[in-house]
């Protein structure tokens, strides 16, 4: 059907319109162009990056040097307990980042323009997800680098490092798709910031990020034991420090649980997000 349309496209300032390549090639090319567009704007809006850079730094310093003096974790330094937690929290906060960016983009009219062009629609939403993941990777790298400088000592084989990277990428994919879907549903970037913070912030505190779940009072303990973010934090901690947590099945099998949660989130959010994107009006 696209070849028919071509005969109508005339005189583009003296340049003939190139023949359209196969769909998969177009998708890759268009996604790359749109991701490039997003990356190019990053240095021009430094405030947007503060979520993934300054915020985790503040948490690191605050917990390591203020609360950390009062928190004692048996058999390990607080750095070694805290840093995997902070990496998990950064991953989780990616939901808010992706949601706010999506809501902002969709309200600006730019996305509508892309959708009204003869580009594959999948590339528009994929570029959104990929761009967000790249931003989050930067944030996680900053947290990890800061942690190493302040005394975090992961105990990992090279295979463990690979496992960690794969887990983080899987987690980023799941939480970013979730955030993109939320951004499309909530529509307003302010509301997205508010709702995202109200949900993710407490869940990330209950997830054994800063203090062990086993020491919490009954209600937060039960929530923490089954909080998906707990699986995330516990999985990262078990890979980097080799110390599984205890309390619930998911905490005792954190890597399997985290992978399960991520695939569940992806299986639900990706089709919904694509559907929403096709229909959105």
């Amino acid at each position: 059907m696209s070849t028919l349309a071509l005969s109508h496209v005339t005189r583009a300032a003296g340049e003939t319109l190139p023949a359209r390549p196969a769909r998969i090639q177009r998708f890759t090319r268009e996604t790359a162009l749109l991701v490039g567009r997003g990356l190019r704007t990053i240095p021009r809006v430094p405030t947007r990056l503060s979520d993934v850079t300054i915020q985790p730094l503040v948490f690191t310093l605050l917990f390591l040097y203020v609360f950390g003096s009062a928190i004692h974790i048996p058999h390990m330094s607080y750095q070694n307990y805290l840093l995997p937690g902070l990496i998990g929290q950064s991953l989780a906060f990616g939901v808010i980042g992706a949601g706010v960016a999506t809501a902002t983009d969709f309200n600006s009219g730019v996305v509508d323009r892309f959708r009204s062009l003869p580009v594959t629609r999948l590339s528009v939403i994929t570029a959104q997800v990929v761009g967000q993941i790249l931003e989050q990777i930067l944030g996680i790298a900053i947290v990890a680098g800061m942690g190493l400088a302040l005394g975090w000592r992961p105990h990992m084989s090279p295979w463990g490092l690979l496992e960690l990277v794969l887990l983080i990428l899987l987690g980023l994919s799941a939480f970013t798709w979730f955030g993109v879907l939320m951004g499309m549903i909530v529509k307003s970037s302010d509301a997205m910031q508010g709702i995202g913070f109200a949900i993710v912030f407490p869940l990330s505190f209950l997830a054994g990020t800063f203090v062990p779940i086993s020491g919490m009072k009954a209600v937060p303990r039960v929530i923490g034991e089954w909080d998906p973010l707990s699986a995330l934090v516990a999985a990262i901690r078990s890979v980097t420090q080799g110390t599984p947590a205890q309390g619930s099945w998911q905490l005792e099998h954190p890597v399997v649980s985290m992978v399960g949660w991520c695939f569940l989130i992806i299986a639900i959010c990706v089709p919904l997000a694509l559907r929403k994107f096709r229909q959105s009006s």
Partner: protein
Amino acid sequence: MTTNPLHTDELVVVTQGLTKHFGDFVAVADFDLEVTAGSIVALLGPNGAGKTTIVRMLATLTEPTQGKATVCGYDVVRNADAVRSVLSLTGQFAALEDNLTAQENLLLMARLRGYSRGPARRIVEGLIDRFDIGEFRDKLIKSVSGGQRRRVDLAASLVVQPRILVLDEPTTGLDPRSRQVVWSTIRDLVARGVTLFLTTQYLEEADALADHIVLIDHGRATAAGTPNELKARIGDQRVDVIAVDATGLDKLIDSLSANFELAIARERRMVSIPAPNDLADLNLVTAAVSGLGSLVDEIALRRPTLDDAFLALTGQSPDTVRASSDVEEAQV
């Protein structure tokens, strides 16, 4: 009004019974339209009349609830990809990336249309010349003026010359000078053979640009015709007399109703009188209220507005909820 040498009878846009519901809200109802190649059609109506929804259905951004629409023979639902390659949309809010420069935005558009770097650059240079973007080409879009944004936005829609260009309220929010620039750009495009479909809230704009006008309100087409046909039905200029207070208004109505056909807007303390003979009619009205000078706040001769057009063509104000809708026909 511009006549297009390439005007033919080929139908570029056809809608039949086009309808869009958002939940219980009927945004567009049973909308029929035919746009012939090379013509300029203006969709004229107040805010919330359904103009943007129609545009979005044509541009494949939202699917109709009922009815059908085709662009160059392609169905907007079944053949959306083909529609996107012949139709170009310039939306109501400049759809540009704020944190890229004018040039970067245009390059991105050209690359997305499939051009490799070299040809994309040549196309963008051409557009920068044609739309007079040179002096702010390297400024971030967020720091240029509204009129400049519009120019970049229009240029971005013309990276590949479309068969049909859709402009959603192209001059809303622009100062008069920028509006003139946009108008002349639009006329230039039509001379190059582009078919234009535009929406506007301004009667003056539809009159200045279009060769066919469709009035729309509450999602329904309420009248259609050439600007001259519609103007003949709307009537000419009007004289507005605004009273200092409500009592003054009653006295003015008493003394004017004997000799003039009045439209009364109580909330604005105003009577409005048709003035086919321009200044002569203004003088007549001024003479009639000369003894009541202390009751008159303002007398003005003005062109018909969108409100007047709707009142004359459909018998009602465009949006009955609006404050200015308190207009009753008082014929004596």
